[in-house]
C-alpha cells in the first residue's frame, strides 16, 4: 500500500466516498444476523479503533453477542505480537472457547463485497465440509501473485492451494473468507501453535488439504481486495460505474458506516463536476472529473481534479491541478500546486497546515 499504510491499517482505508474497508465485512456480518464479532487488530490500529469507537453503526452492541476488539496483550505467559493469522486466534482462544456458537466465519477487513454468510454456512453443512473457503474466478489477465489460488475437483473440494504464485495454475482465488466449526477451529489452532506455526493459510489450510474436507464456495458477485495501490484505486473507480453503485448503494441490504454528522455537499459558482462521486461535507469551487472525493473535501477556485481520489478532510488551494493521484486524508495542498501521476498513480501526502478555530 506504499505511503497510504503509514497512516492506518488497510482495513481502515476509506472506500467509495463514505465508507471504510472494514464496513463491508462488518455490515455483511450484521446483515447475516451474526451477533458476536471479534476484530483482531495490531498494525497501526489507531484509525481503525477510532472508526470502531462504537458498535452501534453496524447494529452490534446487543445484550447477546457484541463487537469485540482484540489487540495483542502482554500476559504472564505471552509477550508476543500477533505473529500470524492463526496466532492471533490462538492468543484469543479463550474467547472462542467461552463462546457457544457452533460455527465461526473468518473474514478479512480489506475486501469490498456483499455476502450473506448464511448461504455459505448452508453450503458448508450440505457438503459436510471441515472448512469452506469462499472463492472467485478472476478475469483473465489479472495477476495472481497477490492471491492464494485454489484448484477444485468437480465436487468443489479443494485439491490444490498455492499462496501468491508467480505463475498460477488456475484463475480461481481464495477471497480470504472461511467457514469452520468452532470446535474444529480450536483444535486446529491449538495443534498449529504446538508446532510453533502461526499462519492460517500456510500452516492450517494448505497442510490439511488432503486430510480434511476443504471445499470451495464460488461467488459470482462483486468482490475486490484493496490491499495494493492499483486495486485500491481501481476499487474506488469501480463505484463510478452505475451497476456497482446500484449493487452497493441501492440494493438491500445496505452497507453501514460510522455516521459523521456532516452537512450536505455544497457547490459554489465555478464548480464543474463530471462523472464523479462527492461526499458529504465537501465544498466544491472547481472542476472535478472522473474522481472520487471523500468527506469534508474543500476544492478551491479554478482547480482541476482529474481521475483522482481525494481522501477525507483534504484542503485544495486555488489554481491547483491534480491528475492521476491519491491524495492522503488530512492533506493541505497549497494554492497553485501541480500534481500529476505521470506513470501510474501518484500518492500525495502533505501535512495538515490548518488549525481548528
Amino acid at each position, binding site marked *: 500500500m506504499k505511503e497510504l499504510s503509514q497512516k492506518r491499517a488497510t482495513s481502515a482505508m476509506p472506500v467509495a466516498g463514505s465508507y471504510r474497508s472494514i464496513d463491508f465485512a462488518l455490515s455483511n456480518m450484521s446483515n447475516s444476523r451474526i451477533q458476536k464479532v471479534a476484530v483482531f487488530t495490531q498494525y497501526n490500529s489507531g484509525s481503525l479503533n477510532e472508526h470502531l469507537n462504537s458498535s452501534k453503526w453496524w447494529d452490534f452492541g446487543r445484550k447477546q453477542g457484541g463487537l469485540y476488539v482484540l489487540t495483542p496483550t502482554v500476559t504472564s505467559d505471552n509477550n508476543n505480537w500477533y505473529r500470524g493469522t492463526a496466532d492471533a486466534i490462538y492468543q484469543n482462544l479463550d474467547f472462542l472457547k467461552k463462546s457457544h456458537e457452533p460455527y465461526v466465519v473468518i473474514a478479512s477487513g480489506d475486501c469490498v463485497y456483499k455476502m450473506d454468510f448464511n448461504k455459505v454456512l448452508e453450503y458448508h453443512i450440505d457438503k459436510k465440509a471441515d472448512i469452506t473457503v469462499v472463492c472467485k474466478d478472476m478475469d483473465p489477465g489479472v495477476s495472481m501473485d497477490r492471491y492464494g489460488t485454489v484448484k477444485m475437483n468437480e465436487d468443489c473440494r479443494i485439491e490444490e492451494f498455492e499462496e501468491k504464485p508467480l505463475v498460477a495454475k488456475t484463475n480461481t482465488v481464495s477471497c480470504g473468507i472461511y467457514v469452520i466449526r468452532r470446535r474444529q477451529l480450536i483444535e486446529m489452532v491449538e495443534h498449529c501453535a504446538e508446532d510453533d506455526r502461526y499462519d492460517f493459510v500456510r500452516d492450517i489450510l494448505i497442510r490439511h488439504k488432503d486430510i480434511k474436507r476443504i471445499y470451495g464456495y464460488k461467488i459470482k458477485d462483486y468482490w475486490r481486495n484493496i490491499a495494493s495501490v492499483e486495486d485500491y484505486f481501481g476499487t474506488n473507480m469501480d463505484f463510478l460505474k452505475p451497476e456497482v453503485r446500484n449493487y452497493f448503494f441501492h440494493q438491500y441490504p445496505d452497507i453501514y*458506516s460510522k455516521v459523521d454528522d456532516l*452537512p*450536505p*455537499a455544497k457547490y459554489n459558482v465555478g464548480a464543474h*463536476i*463530471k462523472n464523479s462521486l462527492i461526499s458529504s461535507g465537501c465544498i466544491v469551487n472547481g472542476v472535478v472529473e472522473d474522481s472520487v472525493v471523500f468527506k469534508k473535501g474543500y476544492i478551491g477556485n479554478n482547480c482541476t481534479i482529474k481521475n483522482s481520489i481525494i481522501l477525507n478532510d483534504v484542503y485544495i488551494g486555488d489554481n491547483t491541478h491534480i491528475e492521476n493521484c491519491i491524495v492522503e486524508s488530512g492533506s493541505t495542498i497549497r494554492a497553485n500546486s501541480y500534481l500529476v501521476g505521470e506513470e501510474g498513480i501518484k500518492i500525495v501526502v502533505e501535512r495538515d497546515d490548518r488549525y481548528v478555530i
Partner: protein
Amino acid sequence: MIKKEMIAMLLAGGQGSRLGVLTSKVAKPAVSFGGKYRIIDFPLSNCINSGVDTVGVLTQYQPLRLNTHIGIGIPWDLDRNIGGVSVLPPYEKSSNSEWYTGTANAIYQNIDYMESFNPEYVLILSGDHIYKMDYEVMLDFHKANNAAVTIAVMPVPIEEASRFGIIITDENRRIQDFEEKPANPRSNLASMGIYIFNWKTLKESLIAMAEQPALDFGKHVIPYCHEKGQPLYAYEFNGYWKDVGTLSSYWEANMELIDIVPEFNLYEEYWKIYTKSESLPPQYISQDSVIERSIIGEGTDIYGKVYNSVIGCGVTIGKDTVVRDSIIMNNTCIQGGCEINKAIIAENVTISDGVQLGVGEEAPNETAPHIYNSGLVTVGEKSVIPSGVKVGKNTVISGVTTPEDYEDSILASGKSLIKAGE
C-alpha cells in the same frame, strides 16, 4: 435523588398550517430543511451543545415521522442513562382525557415528567425555528438577574415589529410590558418563544392557571407572572434566527444556505447540527451534469442540471432536467427532460418525464392565497405528476395525479390540485 439543573421542554405538536401541503402528513418540526436536516434538529442540537441533556418533546399533530426521527435520541447523543429525550404525547387520565389545548396546557399535563428530574430551571422551546443558540449563556443571564422568567428576544426592524409579540423593557432589561402584534410598537424587541422559568414559578403558575381554556404561555402564563410582580427579564439574542412558518420564509431560509459564506453556516466545526442520517453513500454527478450554487445531500444521483437549489438525500434528477431555485426533499425522483422553477417538492414524490413546473404568468392562488404565493409551486409528499404536464405559478399539487386531472395537460397558475390529505 435525581437532580438536573435545567431540563428542556420542546413544543413539537403544532401543525404549522401555513406550510400548506408540506404539513398535511407530518408535524411542522419534522419538515425537512437544508437538504438533510429536519426543523427539530436545530433546537435538539442546541440543547445538547448547550449541555442540556434532558429534553421532553411534546407531540400531538401527526407524530409518526417525528417519533421515528427522534427514536431514543442517538443522533443527538440524547440516549442517556438518566434523562435523555422523551417523547410526550397527550394521554388518557382516569378522570378525563384531553388533547393538548395550548402551549402551556401541554406543559401543565406533563408536570409529573418535569418533577421527576427535580430541576432548578425549565427551558421552554418551540420546534419551528432555525437558529444556533447557547441556552447556557441565557441561563447565566437568568441567574445573574435573579429572574423568575427570562424571555429570549431579538431586535427586529421597527417597521416589521407589528408582526411579532413585542416586549418593552427598562434599561436593565427587566420587562415592563408586552404587546401582541401592536399597530404602533413601542419597542423593536420581538419574543422568540424561548423561555427559561424557575421551576417553582412555572409549577405554581401552571397549577393556578390550570382551568384557563387553551392555556398559552404568551397570552396567559407570562402575563400572570408579570401581574404577580415576579422579576421577568428579556435576554437579547443577536445571532441568526429564522421563523420558517410560511412557505415563502421557508423557501428563503433554505436559499440563504447556498450563499458563498452563508449567515447561517452549517460547515463550522463548532456547534454542529446533528440529524438522523437516512442515507450514507456519496452523491454521483454524471458526465452531462451542471451544478451551480447548490447544496446536495447524500446518496443523490444527478444526471441533469441544478442551479440555486437545495437537494435532499437519495434524490434522483434525470437527464436533461433543469432545476432552478427549488427545494427538493429526500427520496424524490424527477425523471428526464423536466423543467423545475421555484418549486418546493416534498419527500418521495415522483415527477415523470417532460414535466414543467412554475411556468407562465403569475396569478394568485384561488383557494388559499395566504399560503400559496410568491410564485412558488408546492408539491406534497408521495405525489405523482404524470409526464408532459405544464404547471403554473402559485400552484399546489398533492396526491397521485393522472393525466385526466390536467386539462390540456396544463395546471394554470393559481390552481390547486389536491387529491388526498389536507
